[in-house]
């Protein structure tokens, strides 16, 4: 149930503040957009642990690696497009090859960024991050879970972690007490005819889609795949075995994202019909967030339609 709309960015910021209180080794690296990516709470509380490095993402990642080598826990948050693309080589070599505990926050993920347009809408970051050895990739579904994701990334991980989050206020519907278990999908709804595996903002849409399908007598299981890597193989194989069809939903290119990660498991272990809801290999554009989600088919209606199709194939 939606307790009110809230950006995952706020959850990230709250989580970072809490992590800063719990762990004196947490440092936040700022690339000029401290408030915009949710790091302002931390910056206000711990000015001595905020390192301002300006608009220089490649350097930010390298500095984070240096801090991690010295036992600190650096958190570097910037727009996901810049984190995942501008600084990709630094993340690959300085962070992942050295296997360092660096937390990278990818803000403004997805077309729901809205009016800023294609340059600022990260739709490729999951693909880039999940292909890097040693990297853990988290994609929380709402503000509450984003907060828990930061605490898990700081407190539980020992290697590099990427956390993807968005800007637009979206339904906040999960509960803190549910916890955040890296690598274990949350089953939000039981179902028997198909499974919708969703991540990020699309999890809420998946729940709405399951309602639409239920009204037509189709029973949809909904998995919140908040960890893209390491992916929950067991939950995916179980979904394939018990429901016989899978729809994935993500605010990301259909190429190389969650859908691809799920398909890798499905075709290896138990092939079943699949459908992919996501950005169809193209750039976004300016517009109101909801308008854009609708234009590119990132909605409950589209997921439900994919569900109907796939259930027919499975039968």
């Amino acid at each position: 149930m939606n307790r009110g709309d809230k950006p995952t960015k706020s959850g990230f910021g709250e989580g970072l503040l809490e992590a800063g209180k719990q762990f004196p080794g947490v440092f936040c690296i700022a690339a000029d957009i401290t408030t915009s990516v949710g790091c302002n709470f931390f910056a206000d509380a711990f000015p001595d642990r905020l390192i301002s490095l300006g608009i220089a993402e490649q350097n930010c990642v390298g500095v984070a690696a240096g801090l991690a080598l010295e036992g600190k826990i650096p958190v570097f948050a910037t727009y996901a497009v810049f984190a995942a693309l501008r600084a990709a080589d630094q993340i690959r070599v300085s962070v992942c090859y050295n296997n360092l505990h660096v937390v990278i926050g990818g803000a403004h993920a997805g077309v729901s960024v809205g009016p800023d347009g294609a340059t600022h809408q990260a739709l490729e970051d999951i693909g880039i991050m999940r292909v890097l050895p040693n990297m853990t990739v988290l994609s929380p579904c709402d503000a509450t879970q984003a907060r828990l994701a930061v605490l898990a990334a700081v407190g539980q991980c020992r290697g590099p972690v990427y956390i993807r989050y968005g800007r637009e206020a979206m339904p906040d519907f999960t509960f803190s007490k549910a916890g955040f278990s890296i690598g274990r999908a949350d089953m939000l709804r039981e179902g028997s005819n198909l499974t919708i595996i969703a991540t990020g903002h699309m999890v809420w849409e998946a729940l709405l889609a399951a309602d639409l399908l239920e009204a037509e007598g189709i029973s949809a299981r909904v998995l919140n795949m908040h960890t893209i890597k390491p992916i929950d193989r067991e939950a995916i194989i179980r979904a394939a075995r018990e429901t016989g069809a899978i729809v994935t939903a993500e605010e990301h290119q259909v190429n190389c994202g969650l859908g691809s990660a799920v398909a890798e498991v499905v075709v290896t272990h138990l092939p079943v019909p699949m459908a992919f809801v996501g950005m169809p290999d193209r750039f976004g554009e300016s517009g109101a967030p909801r308008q854009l989600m609708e234009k590119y088919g990132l909605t409950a209606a589209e997921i439900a339609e994919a569900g109907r199709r796939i259930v027919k194939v499975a039968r």
Partner: protein
Amino acid sequence: MQQERTADPVKLQQIAHAIRRSVITSLMEAGSGHLGGSLGLTDVFTTLYFSVLNHAPGFPRWPGRDRLVLSVGHVAPVLYATLAHAGYFSVDELNTLRKQGSRMQGHPGRDHGLPGLELSAGSLGQGLSVAVGMAIAAKSDMKDHRVFCVLGDGELQEGSVWEAAMAAAHHKLDNIIAVVDRNGLQIDGKTEDVMKLEPLGDKWAAFGWRVLHCDGNDIPQLLDAFDRAAKVRVKPTVIIARTMMGKGVRSIENNHLWHGKAPSAEQAKVFLEELENN
């Protein structure tokens, strides 16, 4: 526990000579790798590891050690040879360079377990940023060890180096000492033909660094430069060390074609003789 240090140039020259022999031999055994730059930097590495750095080969992770970040990863052979001669591991192991299962990867890789290696590196332009992070951590913890970073001159064409240079000066990291291997050559030829770097000292100075120049193949000059760098406060220091690619082996000195080559067994024999007669 700590490495015994010497400021005796004659002794240091003898060590450098032995390291050069190891560089040539290990590259010959490997069959590939970067000879020119490794020989050019041998005096810098010898001076650092046997005179300047505070470190403990028997205790590589000693928290009080000075850090050395090798940004220009392809000269790994001279780092490996120096670490071996300093006692981090046996000199015999140098013959595994670049071979499968070796702790000495073609470019430094920490996860292969070689003691004394601070950073996996090889993609140019990244090391100085890491050094900045290490230096900020040291300042934050009020530790007084220093962070040295060795960069190639061609590497300075990477924009990220200048992002790091800006950050080091902005954060007043006087615990950083960068050394630029100014041999003037890169794979395609002279740096000034490929992409002009001069006036290089002015560039660093404009970015807020204290700039020192020296002959990077002259050990007394290197000792003096590191001495002067130690006294700099509030600013990071860069030593622009003019070196000669292939230094010590007359027939390949200053020849950019030896940037990324290893000698055959026959060539190695000739090079070692040239080294003796140098």
